[in-house]
């Protein structure tokens, strides 16, 4: 403690990132800290920009459908569905009704596995690892179902322009019913474990706040927006696939929105139940018929080559609206292709959420919007001018110590 001018003063700068080895889409955070409190937040995404749109503008639509499968490892169907729907709009391709329903069923299975994956990550960030194991174990049921229906756990390759590539056979229906019954029996238990736990409540209630006006102005979407009280859900607002025939309502936190981490947990858990209902409705009303507009790939391709125009394909991904803009000008490759993934719209909401929170709350708040990342990999803390390095383990430890302090 020297007196004099060389004394370092607050705020301290804490960089976090840019790479987390386990999760996709790394991001670089810089926090200005005053003691334990976050004053300002800045972040730099784009650490793994792969130029997929550039690649797509040099490929034909059928190749791009399989490229879109690989945009995200968790949202395996939303990108291919958005892109295929945009191309179908341009080329005037009418998708068979049965294919619309199969697309919807897989879309919702994906939401179940994505939300449960998130629930596990959230529990882990809070230091509640038994719940993390539970969430990921029950997630396997949906992964097995997806594998049974598409052949793959990830990169489903189920969507084709003009329909889907695999039908749901009569033998597979009992398997889906069994999976739905499994989740129905489990939901109350999951909700109880998550929502009646006083520690989770203490860590999440009134942390990571995002008001409804902030959510609206920052263009937030999906469960993050709904937890702040914005009544928006593409499935409810803008009919596509089978949703025009179904009764889907945006899931808002019951009893009014706080816009905190806790509400984001509630919304996602309720949406798992909603997805189970939607799949059941689709199974009950599954129309018979073809699953592809055209079996011959060469003919699909020839139609796409002739197509001219522009369109937007839009779906409600597990994290919110996913949107593809495609413009075709009579060539093999599209003239323009813009992918707007859901996290693209949600990342800016981190800034109001994190400001004023504590260092130990960063992991759960960053994870609470379900970004395609959870980036707390390496932290350099500069205190008294001496840099020291915190690893991801240290940050998780800090978060867990806070849980224990609250328990004591």
């Amino acid at each position, binding site marked *: 403690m020297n007196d004099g001018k060389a004394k370092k003063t607050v705020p301290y700068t804490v960089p976090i990132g840019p790479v987390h080895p386990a999760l996709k889409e790394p991001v670089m955070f810089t926090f200005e800290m005053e003691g334990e409190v976050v004053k300002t937040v800045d972040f730099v995404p784009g650490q793994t920009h792969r130029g997929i749109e550039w690649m797509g*503008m040099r490929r034909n639509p059928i190749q791009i459908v399989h490229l879109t499968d690989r945009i995200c490892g968790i949202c395996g169907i939303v990108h291919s569905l958005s892109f295929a729907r945009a191309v179908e*709009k341009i080329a005037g391709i009418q998708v068979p009704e049965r294919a619309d329903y199969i697309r919807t069923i897989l879309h919702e299975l994906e939401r179940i596995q994505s939300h449960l994956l998130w629930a596990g990550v959230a529990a882990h960030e809070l230091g509640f690892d038994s719940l993390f194991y539970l969430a990921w174990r029950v997630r396997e049921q949906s992964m097995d179902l997806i594998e049974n229906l598409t052949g793959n756990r990830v990169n489903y390759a189920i969507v084709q322009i003009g329909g889907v590539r695999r039908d749901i056979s009569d033998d597979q229906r009992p398997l889906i019913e069994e999976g739905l019954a499994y989740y129905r029996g489990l939901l109350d238990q999951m909700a109880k474990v998550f929502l009646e736990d006083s520690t989770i409540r203490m860590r999440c209630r009134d942390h990571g706040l995002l008001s409804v006006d902030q959510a609206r102005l*920052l263009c937030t979407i999906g469960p993050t927006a709904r937890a702040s009280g914005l009544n928006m859900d593409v499935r409810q*607002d*803008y009919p596509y696939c*089978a949703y*025009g025939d179904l009764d889907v309502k945006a899931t808002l936190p019951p009893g009014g929105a706080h816009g905190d981490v806790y509400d984001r947990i509630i919304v996602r858990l309720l949406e798992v139940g909603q997805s189970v209902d939607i799949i059941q409705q689709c199974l009950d009303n599954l129309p018979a018929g073809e699953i592809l507009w055209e079996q011959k790939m060469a003919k699909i391709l020839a139609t796409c080559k002739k197509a001219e125009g522009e*369109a937007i394909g839009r779906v409600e991904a597990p994290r919110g*609206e996913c949107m593809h803009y495609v413009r075709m000008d009579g060539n093999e490759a599209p003239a323009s292709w813009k992918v707007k993934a859901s996290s693209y719209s949600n990342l*800016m909401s981190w800034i109001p959420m994190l400001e004023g929170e504590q260092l130990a709350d960063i992991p759960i708040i960053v994870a609470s919007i379900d970004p395609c990342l959870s980036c707390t990999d390496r932290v350099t803390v500069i205190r008294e001018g001496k840099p020291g390095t915190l690893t991801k383990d240290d940050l998780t430890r800090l978060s867990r110590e806070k849980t224990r302090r609250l328990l004591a």
Partner: protein
Amino acid sequence: MSETPHLTPQQIIDLYSAEFGIGLKEARINERGEGTQKRMSYDIWLRVDRNLLRPAIQKLIGIRFPHFAVIAGNDLGTEIELLYIFSVFYGAKFGEYMVTIGISLPKSDLSIPTITDLIPGALFSEREKQEFFGITVTGIPDGRRLFLPDDFPQGIYPWRKDETGIPPEMVKDLWAIDRPANRPAPPVPEKAPDAGEKTSEGETS
């Protein structure tokens, strides 16, 4: 915020043509129905004079505060077209429309005013258009790059189709690249194409 009642897509276009007249260069509605009931979804496309970008967006905000999705762009040769993609009336059951407001900029003058004072969430997309199309957004509160790395060359805009696009020498065909020479040897030696030479390390199979 004054809330106008729910409008039909045609009523929205009528409002625009009444206010902007010949400044509204193109207006059309695309509709599509899917599923068994074929319930229609509506996409509204508006193309306006470049000076009318902000008034057109303010008009939309006056109708109902929209959700801003993204700015898409097209390189049309001598000009670049920017498409501001919004949706309005979310929250109404099957009542939401996509509204796309497009403007064209000649390549000699690629500057547009920012809209982040109206919709702060548009910042990401404006930063992205600056680095991917070489657009200058005047008044942008944060003009840094968004996705491209710091060492990416200046003056190259990946989505342009002219000489400022990605030059062929920047494209690495990954399929054509052999194992990097500066890496340590693999734990299991790669199989030699011909069995002629044998090393003395005893790595015989």
